[in-house]
């Protein structure tokens, strides 16, 4: 009961004869948060979720869901609701059949929760005939109907129009509120998850580039704009994450540990998207970011 929903230690995954999809990953997801797993395509997000869902075996290191290895202890899968990319379902099944399938293979099935997500969908319709938005809702209904303690969603908003995407997000948040579940949503579009995530994990090329509480990250980073000049140390700036130059102006993205006294700098907050882009940039060091002092690891 007290084990965190997900703990990865030195987790690595390599597919045959290819580069490492994940390398030396250290991660702890706390209970009850909504975690955004961000990063460009091929960052390792799907791989991480697949490992958590017990679909892949680690090449090195370990991953534990509620303290158990999902491959060795498959009963933990009854507590994990997983929706893979593209929400794969049996196309020839009817909606009612799919629900029955889930009911029969999950010990804690709750039809009420599932049905709440399926308004205006005909239970006799074939899954293959549903629209992308309806299929996404069905996949989510199947995941939430299990009464999971952990929900894993891999790019749930891809191929959804904005209206369907917003609807899905509403249903997801409602379901999470009812279940009190922890959620990990992988998406390469920051705007989709920005609205709801309390925590963010940024993956790029198989490594964690940034992780932490969203509010704390936004509080501790600032965009400094000022005339171009050689930089010494700036009072209030702990570390410069990114520098940009254009003409006579330079812009810095910095981690601040106090107010910026120097009036020649214009100080602005930074958006989450901007922050993530900066940490994804290739000129960043390949080693995982973990600055001391800043509470980037949150506790339970």
């Amino acid at each position: 009961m007290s084990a965190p929903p997900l703990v990865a230690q030195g987790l690595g995954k390599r597919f045959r004869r290819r580069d490492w999809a994940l390398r030396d990953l250290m991660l702890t997801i706390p209970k009850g948060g909504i975690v955004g797993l961000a990063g460009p395509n091929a960052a390792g997000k799907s791989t991480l979720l697949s490992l958590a869902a017990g679909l892949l075996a680690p090449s090195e290191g370990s991953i534990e869901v509620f303290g158990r290895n999902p491959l060795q202890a498959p009963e933990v899968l009854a507590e994990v609701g997983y929706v893979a990319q593209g929400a794969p379902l049996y196309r020839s099944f009817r909606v009612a059949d799919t629900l029955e399938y889930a009911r029969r293979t999950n010990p804690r099935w709750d039809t009420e929760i599932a049905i709440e997500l399926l308004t205006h969908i005909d239970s006799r319709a074939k899954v293959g005939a549903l629209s992308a938005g309806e299929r996404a809702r069905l996949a989510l209904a199947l995941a939430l109907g299990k009464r999971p303690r952990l929900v894993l969603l891999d790019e749930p908003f891809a191929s959804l129009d904005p209206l369907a995407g917003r609807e899905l997000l509403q249903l997801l948040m409602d379901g999470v509120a009812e279940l009190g579940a922890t959620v990990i949503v992988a998406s390469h579009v920051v705007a989709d998850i920005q609205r709801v995530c309390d925590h963010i994990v940024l993956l790029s090329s198989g490594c964690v580039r940034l992780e932490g509480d969203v509010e704390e990250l936004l509080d501790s980073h600032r965009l400094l704009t000022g005339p171009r000049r050689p930089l010494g140390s700036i009072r209030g700036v702990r570390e410069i994450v990114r520098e940009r130059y254009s003409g006579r102006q330079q812009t810095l993205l910095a981690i601040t540990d106090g107010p910026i006294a120097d009036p020649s700098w214009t100080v602005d907050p930074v958006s989450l998207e901007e922050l993530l882009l900066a940490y994804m940039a290739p000129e960043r060091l390949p080693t995982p970011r973990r600055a001391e002092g800043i509470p980037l690891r949150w506790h339970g």
Partner: protein
Amino acid sequence: MIEFHLDSQSGVATYLQIVRQVKDALRLGTLDVGDQLPTVREVVADLAVNPNTVAKAYRELEHEGLVVARQGRGTFIARTLAPASLQHHEELREELERWLALARRAGLDEESIRALVSTTLRESLARRVA
């Protein structure tokens, strides 16, 4: 019942926006003592925001004594904010309209006015905190 809206571009934290909207409603009189706030689930299903965020906003309001949470029944307004400020609002509003006319005559468009107001407000708040 109050309906919340979220401005995801404003840079203001979601929970603060909810707190502010409740306070605005109290000041304008659209919420009164005893009125029930929407449940966390209702807000979440409407706005598609994190339930923790709504819970945090309601806790903040409770901390300030504006609402009280009754176990199993919901969250209710406990006290209202001084209506006297409504009067000040009128004067401030007229002054603002005069200033806006000045700004427009100076050639500022809506965008520039917003930028000027945001920057000045932020700086003045920062100065107050610093």
